[in-house]
Structures are given as C-alpha cells and as structure tokens.
C-alpha cells in the first residue's frame, strides 16, 4: 500500500508534482499514466526517497520508505533502465545490493534465473542492451521479495517476448497480493496490464479510477453508421446536435446515443446497412483527458497532434 498525501516537488521555478494525493492498493496492478514530463518518475522517486518532497508526504505500508527496517523487503523499485555500475557484472551488482540486507547468494541466483539473465550474469552490465538492463533492474527490484513493486516504464526497450513476460509477471505479482505500481506513457500497454489507473498530467492527478470506469467517463462512445443515404443522414444528425465525421466508408457520430441514431434514421426513412457502437479506447479517453494538460499547449494544434500521436505510438 502506497499513500501519497499532498505530495509536492518543485525544481527551481518548475512544479513537477503539484500537491498530489493518491492511494495504491495491494492485490492489483495500478497503472500510472501520463505524458512524458507529467511527473510520473518524480513521484516514484519520492516514494523510495531518492528525491526529497518539497511538501507533503508519501508512505509505504504506513511508514516513510527510509524508516523501514528492511527497505528492500518493503519496496522493490525499477526506476531507470541503468541503475547499475557499468564495470560490474550483473551477479556482483545484485550480490552487493543483497548484502546490505543480509540476503544470501541463493536468492541472488534465484532472481537472475527468474529474469532470464543466467547466461550473462558474469558479464559486465555496461555491455548489456537496454532490454537486458531492464531485466537486471527487475531482478534487483525482486531481490527482497518485496510486498510493493514500483516500476517506471518497465517495458521500455524490451523485445516482444520481454514485453509479454513483464505483463505476466506484473499480473502474477499482483495476484500474489502485492502492491504493483507501474508507470507508462503507453496507453495500450496500460490497457493490457492494469486494472486500476491513476492519470497524471502537468503534476496533477487527472483521474483515479478503475480502467473501465475511466474509459466510460473520460471518452464518448461513438456510433458508426453505413448508409446509402449518408449525406442526407449527416444533415439530419447535425441538425439534431451530433458531430459527424466520415470514416471507414461510413460516418462516425459523436454526441448521440446509438438508440437515438437508429430512431432518427427510422423517423426520416433512411436505410441503414450498419449501425454499431464503437467503444472508446484507452487512448481516446486519455487524449481527451490530457489534451489541455500536455506541455504542448501554445504550439499549433496540428503540430501538437502529431507530437501526441508520435508519443502514443512509441
């Protein structure tokens, strides 16, 4: 259980995290979603005491991280891809961390095997690929068999196998009753792994809810229609107050429920070849929620939109 209370971090003039309060509960994967620069990493670093909050407090299982008798048993954190000395082997890196808590060689070998680094454990971490570095970071996070895991962009740089493996691992860890807090700027990734979402933008919490609720509330569901009289129908729908766009050989309607669209067609004697609801994706919900929160404000819309797309497709 992680509890942040009025947590605040200011770097010089810039407020990175702005009086944020939230609770991350055990037994589920909580996604921490936000565009780059929204304050995700800073918040996570404050949880394990690497950054000092400017104000407020964050506790893990009721205590500040540094106050625990065995910090590595409380929280395992993967915060940056490279948090190992490049000149030291993976095994020696993990052994050094384990020794601070009197954790033995057996556990070190166990986590090495678990993350699939057995073959290269004797090699210097400096030669590792980004993906191997991530695996080493995950091994370090798991060393103390912690009740809480904090992972900042854990799938960064992983190959498809690795991504799948991380998803399974996170779900299993949550299934074991652990608190799993995982950040990403990739909404699709969150949709697959998280059951609860905390959305942050410009240092503020924008949403804190179950993933289904989030999509339902944050984004409008669209109605898709194919009709031989699409042009005529567009006029009808627009005058009823809906927004209509051409899409995929038909039209996409926002602002009217599917039932209302069907009724309008019947009332005007318009034939429909398809009437379906298009469920909003997490992407849509996220975009809607953060569109005015992203740092791109103030630059032309089309440029901002391109940047957002690029970010989303990364």
């Amino acid at each position, binding site marked *: 259980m992680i509890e942040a209370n009025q947590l605040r971090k200011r770097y010089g003039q810039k407020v990175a995290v702005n009086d944020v309060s939230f609770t991350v509960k055990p037994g589920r994967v909580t996604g921490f979603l936000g565009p780059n620069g929204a304050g995700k990493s800073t918040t996570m670093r404050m949880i394990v*005491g*690497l950054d000092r909050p400017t104000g407020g407090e964050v506790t893990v299982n009721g205590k500040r991280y540094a106050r625990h008798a065995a910090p590595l048993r409380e929280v395992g954190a993967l915060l940056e891809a490279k948090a190992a000395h490049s000149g030291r082997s993976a095994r020696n890196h993990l052994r050094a961390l384990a*020794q601070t808590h009197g954790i033995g060689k057996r556990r070190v070998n166990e986590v090495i095997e*678990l993350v699939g680094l057995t073959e290269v454990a004797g090699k210097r971490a*400096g030669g590792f690929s980004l993906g191997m570095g991530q695996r080493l970071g995950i091994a370090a996070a798991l060393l103390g068999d912690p009740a809480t895991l904090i992972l900042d962009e854990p799938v960064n740089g992983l190959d498809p196998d690795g991504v799948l493996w991380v998803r399974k691992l996170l779900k299993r860890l949550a299934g074991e009753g652990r608190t799993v807090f995982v950040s990403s700027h990739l909404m699709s990734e969150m949709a697959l792994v998280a059951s609860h979402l905390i959305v942050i933008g410009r240092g503020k919490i924008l949403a804190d809810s179950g993933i289904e609720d989030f999509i339902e509330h944050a984004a409008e569901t669209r109605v898709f229609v194919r009709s031989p009289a699409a042009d005529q129908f567009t006029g009808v729908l627009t005058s009823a107050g809906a927004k209509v766009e051409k899409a995929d050989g038909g039209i996409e309607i926002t602002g009217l429920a599917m039932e209302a669209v069907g009724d309008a067609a019947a009332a005007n004697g318009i034939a429909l070849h398809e009437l379906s609801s298009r469920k909003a994706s997490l992407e849509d919900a996220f975009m809607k929620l953060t569109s005015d929160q992203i740092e791109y404000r103030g630059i032309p819309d089309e440029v901002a939109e391109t940047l957002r797309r690029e970010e989303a497709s990364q």
Partner: protein
Amino acid sequence: MSMTAQPRAGLEKARWSWFGVLRSEWGKLWTLRSTYIIIAVGAVFMIGLSFLIAMGISEGLRDSGGFSMVPGFGDIVSPVIAFISLQGVLLAQFATGVLGVLLVTGEYSTGMIRSTLAASPTRIPVLVTKAVVVFVAAVLAMVPVAIIGFLVAQGRYTEFGIEAALTDPGVPQIVVGTALYTAAVAVIGTGLGWILRSAAGAIFALFILLMLLPLLLEFVDLDWVQTLTDYLPGAAGQAVYTPTEGFEILPSDFEADNEGFGTWEGYAIMWGWVLAILAAGGWMLMRRDA
C-alpha cells in the same frame, strides 16, 4: 520460473544493517577492474619514483667520490633513509586519492547511486562505509607497496654502506606511515566525490588541495598565510611518514616542510580535514536528490 508467493526461507529475517552495507561496499570495491588498475598505478608511482630517487642519489655519491659532497652523510640515520626512499608517496597519493574519488563518482556517472541509495535510504551509512572500505583497502595495498619501494631503494645504497633495514628502529613507522597518509588521501577523495559528484571535478579539487595550493601559497608573504600552509592536509599529514630528527646533515632539497608537528599531531590535523570534507559531503548527500 518459480516465484515466491511466500517469502523464501531466510528472506523473512533479512534486515538492513551497517555490517551488511560494509560488506556490500567492500565487495563493490573489489568487483571493479578499475580498483586493481589504480592500485597497480599507485605501486608503479611509489616503487618507480623511489627507485629513480635512489638511483639519482647513488649516482651523485659515486660522482663525488663518496660522501665528500655532503659531510657527515655516512652518519645518516635509517628513518631518514627510509623517508627519502619513499618519496614516491608524492605521486602515489594521487592514485589512492583517485581510488576514493571513483568509488563515489563512478556510482553517479553510471546511475548505480540510485540502486545504492534505494538499498540504504538513510544514506549516511553509505558515506561512512565507503570511507572505511577505501581506507582499509589503501592501507592493505600500500603497506606492501611501500615495503617493496623501500627495499628496491636500499639496493642502490648498499655500496655506500648507508642502506637501512626494514627492522631498523623507526623504519617500520615510516613505511606504515606512508601507507596511512595515502589512505587518508583516499578518504578525502571520497569526500570530494560526494561534494562534486563528478570524477573530473573531484580529481581536480584533490590536485588543488594537495599540490597547487601549497605551491601557490608559498608566494604569499604573509605570516598567517604561511601558518595556514603548514596546516594544509598534505603538509600536516606528511608528519606521519617523516622522521622527527636526523635531517640536519642533508642538503636543503630534502628538508621536510613539516613545521615541527609530531607524528600523530600532524596526522590528526590531516584527519581534521578528512572529517570536515566528509561532513560537507554528508550534508550535501542528505540534502540533494539522488
């Protein structure tokens, strides 16, 4: 892929401890290739320079046909011979200093510091154990190096009958004192590393403190500045490897700068610097984000 729904046997007893951090830091020092390279460089500095100085002296003695150039040189005492034999310390101190610097700044440049501080979030134990570890390592490495340097130099003195033996009164203290001095420099290196967090900056600061500052302050003809110069870590600290008497018969080149500090008095002053620099590093370590 067996993972641990319940804590594994042994893991529920796992606790952070000072002893654990000490073991961790000790292991970290010896699992880096750079440690061995730096110690090897320190050995080359120490032994090589000692050898060259001894060669220069023996050549000079031979050219002047024995001791005629320096009256009374034949009566030189063993501790002074040992002191002259170990002048390589002036170079070797930078090797141990760099060892201390890199032990800290290497963590910052690679990102390791975040793992280190996440495992020891109270932070200060990391600073303290790194200082202890590098001090012990430098003493263990430099005592044998100083012994070898001493013995290599004696080979050049045998023909003049002035060579000293390791067991001569006062000699062991000079040899061990040399190692103790370089070890204190190593700890200063860690302190500067904590303050500056970059290898280049910390090594430069070390060089200023130990080399440039004493040289430049020589030119300031003010009594209080000269007094201050005597209290600089290098000048005060050299008391620990400098004989307190027996220099009168030497040419002025070899006159020690040691302004009359006793062996341990001077070393204690050096440790004042060590602790002050560590304290400054610790204060910054606690205040800054990692």
